[in-house]
């Protein structure tokens, strides 16, 4: 019983749905008090039905829904409203109620018989309107507001209920970026300061990853996975559930996970059937990878140190990478692997990577490629990026250009050179 009280919402093997259609299929999960949880899943997977079942709008066909330890269907409606607030996808009013009249609806269950409000009720209404920045709109007609403004009014109304858990059904997707950040900030503040539990239905996986404690991943009425962002946001699982090519990478600045979709790249890459090996490091390769993939090249890269941001990017982009342990000089095993990649490649590109003694070996790779008769393209301006003793890299580079390596100055120019070169080859 003690443990129960720490849960805001518990689904015990719940099946639910409508008259002729079962939507939720034996769903079980729990949300602890004070958690910020994102509910994700493709359209029509049952997210809205789950919220409706949690709010006792739908009665489960089997199983049990508990809100703060009590069966949600046994809680009096007025008490339930003080525990749970729901911001739906869209609210519509057919009548010309003003914004403040709409927000006052949030106090309806504590109003007197004639709809009179106590000073405490009034304070809650005012505070909610200030919080959501709708005070200026208070005497405007709700129906005249933009979609984003209506959403903020809806949130104000739900905040006026002063609930302990708020569920938002894709409510923030209509907001512009400014107000989306603001609403999320409000939710996060409520979550941190008042320990308000938040359940957010979201399609923005990257955004949710940065604010959520946990994820609930649904597909076709079933709960697929429950866990931390790292546990749930796995490319294989997501790609299967969303039925498209999704990648997950870590933001190098914030450390949060980012989910990226690149639906087109696979097909185009296959159709071009040309491969390029990139020698990079220290983040100099990311933009190259991206552009080459978009242009449809099969990209390999290396040798890279395992923690290098280029290595992270390459892994997120599903590239073949020759890897070396972090912060160690590039060893022969990795070099052998990279040489194999160069064998398979049509061209080798050297990025604007700075050179030190640790990665000078990578220039050997370029030299080897030149010997094998591959096209080698070197980034211009090596003098500024050469940190080796006695300008070893600079000398190496000038030798390579003498032997026939080409120089590129900008990525668009590089792409043109590659195209020209491939036409030349195929003719």
């Amino acid at each position, binding site marked *: 019983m003690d443990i129960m009280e720490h849960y805001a919402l518990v689904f015990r093997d719940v099946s639910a749905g409508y008259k002729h259609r079962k939507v939720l299929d034996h769903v079980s999960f729990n949300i602890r008090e004070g958690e910020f949880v994102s509910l994700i899943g493709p359209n029509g997977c049952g997210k809205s039905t789950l919220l409706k079942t949690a709010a006792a709008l739908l009665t489960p066909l089997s199983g049990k829904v508990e809100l703060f330890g009590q069966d949600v269907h046994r809680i009096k409606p*007025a008490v339930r409203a003080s525990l749970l607030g729901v911001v739906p996808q869209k609210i519509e009013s057919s009548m010309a109620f003003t914004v403040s009249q709409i927000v006052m609806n949030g106090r309806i269950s504590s109003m007197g018989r004639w709809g009179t409000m106590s000073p405490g009720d009034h304070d809650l209404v005012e505070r909610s309107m200030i919080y959501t920045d709708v*005070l200026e709109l208070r005497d405007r007609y709700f129906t005249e507001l933009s979609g984003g403004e209506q959403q903020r009014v809806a949130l104000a109304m739900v905040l006026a209920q002063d609930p302990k858990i708020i569920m938002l059904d894709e409510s923030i997707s209509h907001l512009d970026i400014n107000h989306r950040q603001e609403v999320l900030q409000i939710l996060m503040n409520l979550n941190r300061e008042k320990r308000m539990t938040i359940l957010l239905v979201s399609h923005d996986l990257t955004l949710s990853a940065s604010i959520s404690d946990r994820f609930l991943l649904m597909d076709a009425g079933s709960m697929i996975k429950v866990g931390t962002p790292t546990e749930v946001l796995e490319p294989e699982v997501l790609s299967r559930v969303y039925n498209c090519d999704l990648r997950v990478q870590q933001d190098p600045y914030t450390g949060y996970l980012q989910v990226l979709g690149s639906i087109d790249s696979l097909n185009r890459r296959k159709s071009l059937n040309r491969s390029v090996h990139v020698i990079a490091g220290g983040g100099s390769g990311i933009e190259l990878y991206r552009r080459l993939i978009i242009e449809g090249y099969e990209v390999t890269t290396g040798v890279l140190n395992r923690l290098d941001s280029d290595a992270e990017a390459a892994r997120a982009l599903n590239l073949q990478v020759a890897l070396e342990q972090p912060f160690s000089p590039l060893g022969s095993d990795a070099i052998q692997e990279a040489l194999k990649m160069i064998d398979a490649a049509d061209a080798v590109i050297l990025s604007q990577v700075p050179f030190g003694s640790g990665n000078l070996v990578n220039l050997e790779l370029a030299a080897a490629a030149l010997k094998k008769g591959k096209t080698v393209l070197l980034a211009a301006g090596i003098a500024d990026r050469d940190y080796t003793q006695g300008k070893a890299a600079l000398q190496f580079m000038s030798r390579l250009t003498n032997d026939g390596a080409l120089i590129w100055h900008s990525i668009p120019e590089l792409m043109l050179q590659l195209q020209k070169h491939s036409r030349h080859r195929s003719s």
Partner: protein
Amino acid sequence: MVNDERKACLDNRFTSTSHRHASSRIVLFFLAVLLLLTLSMLLGPSGIGIPDMQSNAGSAIISLRVNRLLMGMMTGAALSASGVVFQALLRNPLAEPYVLGVSGGAGLGATISILAGSGLFVTLGLPVVAFISAVLTLMVVYGIASQGSSGQPSVYSLILSGVIVSSICSSVIMFLVSTASVEGMHNVIWWMLGSLQPVSSGQQLLSAALIVGGLGGIWLLSPHLNALALGREMAHYQGLRADLVLVTGLLFATLLAATAVSLSGMIGFVGLIVPHVMRAVFGPDNRKLVPLAALGGGTFLVVCDALARTILAPIEIPVGVVTALAGGPFFLIILQRRMKQAWIA
């Protein structure tokens, strides 16, 4: 601090002016009601002005006019208030007793009881039979509308099935009238045309009780009607027993409409025009709207009746004709000028 100041400033600017406006409007409205009711007391087929109270004829005329005023107030208030409730519950500007088939059902019940019954049964049983058949009709309409959808009927299917059931009811009434005796036919048609001819005092008292009860019930429900403006789902989330409010509201509104129909026959337009005009002037808050619309509806019908019996005197025009002729254009003007603020459908 800044927020507080801004809030105070906004409070001041908005609440004070809008409050002043609202209360001055209400005062004006009450004055207009008093004026119109007084004027309609002065109108009649026997001439304009107060008749000689000393004579038997004069006091008879006065009591007749008072009687019609009460009939008009009751019927108009009931129709108008039930319109407010139907529109709020079904979230549709077109919802009113006629559209939903409630009046048609009540009319059918009333017709049957006028043709079949006699004496005391007709006078006292009429409102009850009308109410029962109106509720049955509403259940049929609701049932048909619920088919196919996932449990809850949409407003459109409700209105569609309401219109169809309503026309079936009128066909049955026509059939009953065409096969009735001459006397029965006369009674039914006279009643059906819609008039505020005095009924027996027993029926009047019973109707008054039902209407007052219905209005009181609706007024108690009015804060909850506001919450339903955002839909059943939202009202549920805010801690309302939304379905209970819906069913109770529909029952009270049906009771009012059925009683009005049994009392004065088929008088259209009141349940549609008056709520809209009142909403345009006083806003959509049902707590204010229910009593104001009841008062406004009663006054509107009384004025229409005064016109109906005066314009072509001694011929009396059915009051339903006047409500439609007077109300229609007025409604269109309001629609053009104020509807945007009062109801954006």
